[in-house]
């Protein structure tokens, strides 16, 4: 009956998106009249993991086998399904991510569970188990009935507004039995950009397009992003031209973001770009062309030259 939340750690800390999933899972547990248990895999401390209690979890299972340090999908899927059977969980919640989805998919096949990604709201239990998800890259939604005895929900960022409490969770060590066949995939190297805010996790995003004219001009984009504590993003041609790394490319064929604030500077607002950003809460568009299609999708707009406007916005933020 219980709800199990699969979380991810980043340098020992629970990821922000995972904490959101913990809160979502705890609300689902309340609706079902059961408890929410968290699974955390990798190096961390009891103090850090107990924080899951602030987000509504009662218990945290901590699996910390040294072989689990790298994001090995098959091993993680085995650990998660063992935790599911130990806890008798029927509903599994996780935040959308490249690791999370990969693990969840394998667990769905192991458990023959109904699996749905891009969940945007709390489930509806009024007649069965139904969830709302976004489809067509945010251009529509579907209400889906989960027919399986077990259900897996990969939740989209900002599906729920989190309310923190002062509760804390108990932390238990979880010792799964791992098989050698879990480790046939070898991770031979990991490159992570340090110090930057992860784009899929960011609450605030400053994004720029071809209107910036060249990579040498990105200083004004980064300045505004740093001033407000935002991640930076870009349109597809900008990453295709290697002005910015591919990991910043948002849109239909790039990263899908749903931050609280998305500022688009010098981006025309092509339908494929909008597809990746249209579920942002507030969209600001800065473009010198008053006819740019992006204004139709925006909440606030400024018709002006990015080289003039961006530095002035940065200055205004710093003056606060």
């Amino acid at each position: 009956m219980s709800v199990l939340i699969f979380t991810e750690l980043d340098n020992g800390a629970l990821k922000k998106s995972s904490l959101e999933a913990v809160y979502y899972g705890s609300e689902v547990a309340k609706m079902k009249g059961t408890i929410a248990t968290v699974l955390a895999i990798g190096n961390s401390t009891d103090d850090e993991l107990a924080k899951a209690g602030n987000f509504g979890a009662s218990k945290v299972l901590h699996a910390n086998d040294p072989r689990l340090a790298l994001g090995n999908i098959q091993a993680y899927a085995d650990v998660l399904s063992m935790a599911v059977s130990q806890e008798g969980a029927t509903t599994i919640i996780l935040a959308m991510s490249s690791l999370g989805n990969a693990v969840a998919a394998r667990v769905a096949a192991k458990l023959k569970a109904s699996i749905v990604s891009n969940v945007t709201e709390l489930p509806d239990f009024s007649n069965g188990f139904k969830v709302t998800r976004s489809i067509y890259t945010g251009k529509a939604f579907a209400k889906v009935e989960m027919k399986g005895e077990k259900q897996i929900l990969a939740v989209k960022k900002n599906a729920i507004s989190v309310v923190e409490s002062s509760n804390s969770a108990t932390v238990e060590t979880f010792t799964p039995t791992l098989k050698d066949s879990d480790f046939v995939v070898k991770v031979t190297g990991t490159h992570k950009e340090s110090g930057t805010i992860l784009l899929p996790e960011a609450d605030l995003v400053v994004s720029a397009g071809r209107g910036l004219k060249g990579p040498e001009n990105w200083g004004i984009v980064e300045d505004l992003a740093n001033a407000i504590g935002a991640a930076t993003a870009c349109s597809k041609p900008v990453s295709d031209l290697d002005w910015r790394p591919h990991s910043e490319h948002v849109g239909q064929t790039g990263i899908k973001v749903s931050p609280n604030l998305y500022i688009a500077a010098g981006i025309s607002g092509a339908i494929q770009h909008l597809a990746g950003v249209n579920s942002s809460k507030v969209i600001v568009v800065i473009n010198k062309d008053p006819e740019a299609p992006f204004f139709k999708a925006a909440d606030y707009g400024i018709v002006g030259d990015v080289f003039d406007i961006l530095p002035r916005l940065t200055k205004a933020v710093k003056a606060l």
Partner: protein
Amino acid sequence: MKILVCVTSVPDTTAKISFTDGDTKFNKAGVTFITGPYDDYALSRAVELKEQTGGTVTVLNVGEADSEQVIRKCLAIGADDAIRVNCEPKDSYFTAVQIATIASEEKYDLILMGRESIDYNSGVVHGLVGEILGIPSLSPVMKLNIEGTTAKMTREIEGGKEEIEASLPLVLGCQEPIAEWKIPNMRGIMTARTKPLRVVEPVGEDMTFTEKYMLPAPKGACKMIPAENAEELIALLRSEAKVL
């Protein structure tokens, strides 16, 4: 090497999405269907690998007869033959079962997919298929090279990348820059017409049921701020939108 490429037939990225039958069915009228853009990357890399090392490329689609136009285009780009599982792909699980059933009969060295479909965007079919077949699944893969029976890959992770090595067989979800999209040439289009396309019937059941579709609420009017008062934006984002 025997490669299977799984492709979706999806509405063109500029398509206007609407529904019929009391919002219970996708409205195909006036919509152009294309190969999923990520599936196109998978296919392009498969054709490149075949050109380098020999072997065959089979494309597989779970879909109704109207997806044959997309399948023929994949054949024109360089796939050797095709399989279509004749049904509406009901959900991720159902689709994965169809793919795994074919793959367990045919024993492919490599099963390439897109990182996600652009209709349901779930990003899970590769993991489901990998688990059903009992082989590793990795996604999103942005570089893939084969040395003997070992695949060397780069996988994108949040904020970075991982270098990975694994033995074949594997299921991979692909994304750029794994290959450049290929465009069919005249000769390809001519030969595609006579390449074999096998139609098989589906097995198994779906695990979800889509009850209703909805469109997003229309966006309210955009509040324009004159360029000379641009600084006002910051105040509005704090006091009105409450996002700063």
